[in-house]
């Protein structure tokens, strides 16, 4: 069957290949490849020593630590609450459920700057929420984590939700009828199938948080060494017309997120392999 369709495709091809191939390659080259290659081109103009001095500057290193740390905490909060929310939205009924479901998309639809000023006003020391705490939330790393949690929530919910929806109730019934209690069923039957989706959600939320700028810049306070995230550090360098420095830091960010995505893909692949092996045996 497979070879048949392959043969058919060779003999018969829908029109439009030249047009769609030409346009797609042209568009991708001009809009994505050429601009992104500028980072490489401009970074290569530096010697290794100059490059290292820029990227290992204590202020830069502090910004990496803050960006990675805050993104990690936010992504982990989203993994926990996002999975619970996805579960509740798929499995239970409660009043205003469809409103809550629709609300999950808000961070995707709301401009980041709008989210930024709203969260800052809420968590500022005299804000609706900030006033109840005797420590500062906005303008500290805590505020950054809140903004990144806001931005990343839909990634986890919207990747876990469809997997739960397609989960067959028969498997849970089988597990229960074989004597497993509910906790055992959740741990050994439901949870393993959710892991790839949860990991994907974590990856997307974390990757988005690493580069996030609009929602963080207002709430962060932007104090060098303390509350300055890497995208903001790049922005500061740009405002000082330090294009070389901005490009060097940008290349660190790009390489960092590339290796993160690569690692997560390998982990996904290992999990999948382990899973199929177990089913095979």
């Amino acid at each position: 069957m497979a070879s048949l369709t392959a043969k058919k495709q060779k003999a018969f091809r829908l029109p439009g290949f030249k047009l769609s191939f030409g346009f797609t390659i042209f568009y991708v080259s001009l809009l994505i490849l050429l601009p992104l290659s500028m980072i490489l081109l401009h970074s290569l103009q530096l010697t290794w020593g100059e490059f290292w001095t820029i990227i290992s500057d204590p202020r830069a290193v502090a910004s990496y630590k803050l960006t990675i740390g805050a993104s990690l905490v936010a992504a982990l909060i989203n993994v926990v609450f996002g999975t619970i929310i996805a579960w509740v939205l798929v499995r239970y009924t409660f009043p205003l459920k469809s409103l809550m479901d629709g609300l999950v998309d808000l961070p995707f639809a709301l401009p980041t700057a709008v989210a930024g000023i709203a969260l800052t006003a809420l968590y500022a020391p005299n804000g609706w929420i900030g006033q109840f705490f005797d420590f500062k939330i906005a303008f500290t790393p805590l505020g950054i984590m809140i903004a990144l949690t806001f931005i990343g929530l839909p990634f986890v919910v919207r990747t876990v939700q469809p997997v739960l929806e397609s989960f067959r109730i028969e498997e849970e019934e089988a597990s229960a009828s074989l004597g497993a209690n509910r906790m055992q069923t959740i741990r050994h039957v439901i949870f393993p199938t959710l892991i790839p989706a949860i990991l994907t959600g974590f990856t997307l939320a974390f990757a988005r948080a690493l580069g996030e700028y609009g929602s963080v810049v207002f709430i962060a306070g932007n104090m060098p060494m303390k509350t300055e995230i890497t995208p903001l550090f790049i922005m500061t360098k740009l405002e000082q017309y330090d294009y070389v420095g901005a490009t060097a830091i940008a290349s660190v960010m790009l390489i960092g997120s590339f290796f993160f995505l690569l690692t997560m893909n390998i982990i996904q692949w290992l999990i999948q392999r382990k899973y199929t092996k177990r089913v095979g045996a």
Partner: protein
Amino acid sequence: MTENVLEQPHTLPKVKIDSPTSEPKWIRRSLITISVLFLSLFLLLPLVMIFMTAFQKGVDVYLASITNSEALSAIRLTFLVVLIVVPLNTLFGVLSAWLISKYHFKGKNILLTLIDLPFAVSPVIAGLIFVLLFGAQGLFGEWLLERDIFIIFALPGIILATLFVTVPFVARELIPLMQAQGQSEEEASHSLGANGFQTFMRITLPKIKWGLLYGVILCNARVIGEFGAVSVVSGHIRGLTNTMPLHIEVLYNEYQFTAAFAVASLMSLLALATIIAKNIIEWRTKEVSK
């Protein structure tokens, strides 16, 4: 033995037993409470706060904040960018999805990765790369300067940076959809004498219209709201290169909170419209598949 089994239905309802495929009531209740509290605190409260702050000094101040000349020029600029960027990326989305779903060729996976790339790049870097290309010190900087062409700190830069950031939206929506739908109907249409354009308009488009609309709506929302990339390339020239999000930033930094939240409330309305449209489309596609 058989008698016992038959009797069971009569005795069962007296003792309340939790369903084996659901959780005890107290767990269900607490999970629902946690979810509703989390969503209300993190998502609903900011939304409520935007509208309350926007209107806290009355309707007159609200209307003045969104109808002054700077606000209006920001709104105009934002919609101009939408009118250019959304159709271009829609065209790209349709053509690239057609290419990837209908043909076999080498390097398809690399192409897919490239299309996805803007999702993984920080908006600030998305702006930076166009400064490196067209800015005064950029690759084409001198060439452009000699000819008095302005791209950075002008409209073309805003459009390019926004195009980059929103490239994947329509394509990402259509590629899996068109791959799943296969191409036998298109082949039948073509073999019956329809040309490529007729085949696309009459066969493919009706099958993908909801997915296409969904991608366009998501792309549109991001174009309107893009902040980081536009912030780098715009130069913040008031009344000239400030889009709506940049205008909000300017107002906020000048402590004009009511005005900032008034413009923010307009953008929140657009966001709510986006969410409603998305839900209608999802509901329609579910109805169709039933």
